[in-house]
């Protein structure tokens, strides 16, 4: 829009937008501030200036063995996403480049599996995990997270792959490229951005998953989402420590998330809004 806007209007919009943005961000900001306070400061009433102590961060790491759930979160989110990609890339590739009459139906059916409420299969999954010894294991939870995100992964990859123009393939073939050349030199470079976007969004979704992680873990395989949920009762009284644990749990994904705004829209609307 190349409309001229008076600078007075711009100041007004800017002030309003910043007030809204800071109000929305405030709970996160205040948690970061509280994490830098001592426990006494944290409950001493409203104060935006902390004493910048790192004692709560140290306490979370020593007393609560923070690194174990952190490691689990990293392994589970990345592992489940990679596993999903291994299954989904060939499928999305085939549907994008060799579509059949049923491709659309298959995609819609895959999407429909995402509509199944998790709680509807809580009972069988819980019992299967109990009886097969998968309960509280990383491998069991990795497979679970892979399955629940697989439809989104296939869909995202499909929408990206479909944008790779077919003419480029034809041109490569005219130049005498073999199938192997096609895949390595033409398709792969064009597909990598889409795969990277898909990876990013699904790591975020898996990191923040908080139904199955709470249901299917106790201590060994518990990622940060289950670890933090266990803070709700006894240790909830330690404000600064709770804040430090929260900051550590959300910081990595918050930063990843800032880079994935576009993919977020596309991935979560199944390509319906771009």
């Amino acid at each position, binding site marked *: 829009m190349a409309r001229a806007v008076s600078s007075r209007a711009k100041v007004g919009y800017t002030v309003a937008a910043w007030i809204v943005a800071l109000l929305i961000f405030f709970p996160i900001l205040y948690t970061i501030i509280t994490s830098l306070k001592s426990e006494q400061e944290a409950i001493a009433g409203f104060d935006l200036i902390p004493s910048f102590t790192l004692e709560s961060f140290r306490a979370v790491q020593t007393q609560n063995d923070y690194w174990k759930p952190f490691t689990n979160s990293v392994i589970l989110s990345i592992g489940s996403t990679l596993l999903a990609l291994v299954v989904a890339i060939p499928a999305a590739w085939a549907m994008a480049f060799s579509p059949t009459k049923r491709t659309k139906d298959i995609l819609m059916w895959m999407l429909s599996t995402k509509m199944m409420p998790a709680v*509807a299969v809580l009972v069988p999954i819980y019992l299967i995990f109990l009886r097969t010894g998968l309960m509280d294991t990383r491998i069991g939870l990795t497979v679970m997270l892979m399955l629940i995100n697989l439809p989104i992964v296939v869909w995202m990859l499909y929408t990206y792959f479909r944008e790779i123009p077919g003419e480029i393939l034809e041109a490569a073939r005219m130049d005498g490229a073999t199938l192997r050349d096609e895949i390595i030199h033409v398709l792969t470079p064009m597909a990598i951005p889409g795969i990277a976007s898909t990876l990013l969004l699904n790591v975020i979704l898996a990191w923040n998953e908080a139904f199955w992680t709470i249901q299917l873990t106790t201590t060994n395989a518990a990622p940060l989402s289950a670890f933090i949920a266990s803070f709700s009762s006894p240790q909830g009284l330690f404000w600064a420590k709770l804040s430090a644990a929260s900051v550590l749990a959300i910081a990595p994904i918050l930063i990843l998330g800032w880079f994935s705004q576009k993919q977020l829209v596309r991935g979560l609307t199944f390509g319906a809004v771009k």
Partner: protein
Amino acid sequence: MATRQTASLARLMRAPAIILLLIWMIVPLGMTLYYSFLNYNLLNPAGTSWAGWFNYRYFYTDPAFFDAIRNTLVLVLGVLVITVVGGIAIALLIDKPIWGQGIVRILIISPFFVMPPVAALIWKNMIMHPSYGVFADIAKFFGAQPVDWFAQFPLTSIIIIVAWQWLPFATLILLTALQSLDGEQMEAAEMDGAGALSRFIHLTLPHMARAITVVILIQTIFLLGIYAEILVTTNGGPGNASTNLTYLIYRAARLNFDIGGAAAGGIIAVILANLVAIFLMRAVGKNLD
């Protein structure tokens, strides 16, 4: 070059994903359906017997079930109204020329990346706590009695938390739709003397209609399954005041060990979700061609 060879290769490439999802969809759901007709309690597995429709009838006569259905609907509708109306307003605002738009966007999108248990704990302890929360500090500053949010307004408190988590999503999607709006058309309408409100109603809103539909439908799927926020704040209470269907089923399965009852509840949840899904599939399906 759709030779027979590439066609069979394509089939081979599709197969693993399809088979996995097929198993994932059929096996657990089939088991849930089977369990829903059993008297089966994990505390007394030897006493397992065929129950017929008992589990469903039990749900139907249990007042907690209707509380849960009502709470589920209030939760979903409450969050939808806040996020859609708020999302439109905020998207319109940050689509204007402003300084620092990139940072404003980052600040607004952030809550979406906060995992549900953390979001709930932040609000429970930092913001809404009756003694140490920011709301209590504000109340004290004005000499008012602080509100004990989770005791007095349990469902409203959860709606506030969940709306805070989903407002960024709605805003981001509506903003994306807004940015594809034809600027020239807007200008033409302005030249013809159309006021800001009339431009919004006749141009902007119709343009965003599909994005709004998508926001409503996708959020509904996730909102029907709200769980962690309830677990760490109210535990569904006081009484059943903040128990939704997901939480009710969780309680039956994990706290009462009532496998049959929980399974019947699960089947009811599937039926509810499918009603929503039918509409979503139509909206998304149109975009495929």
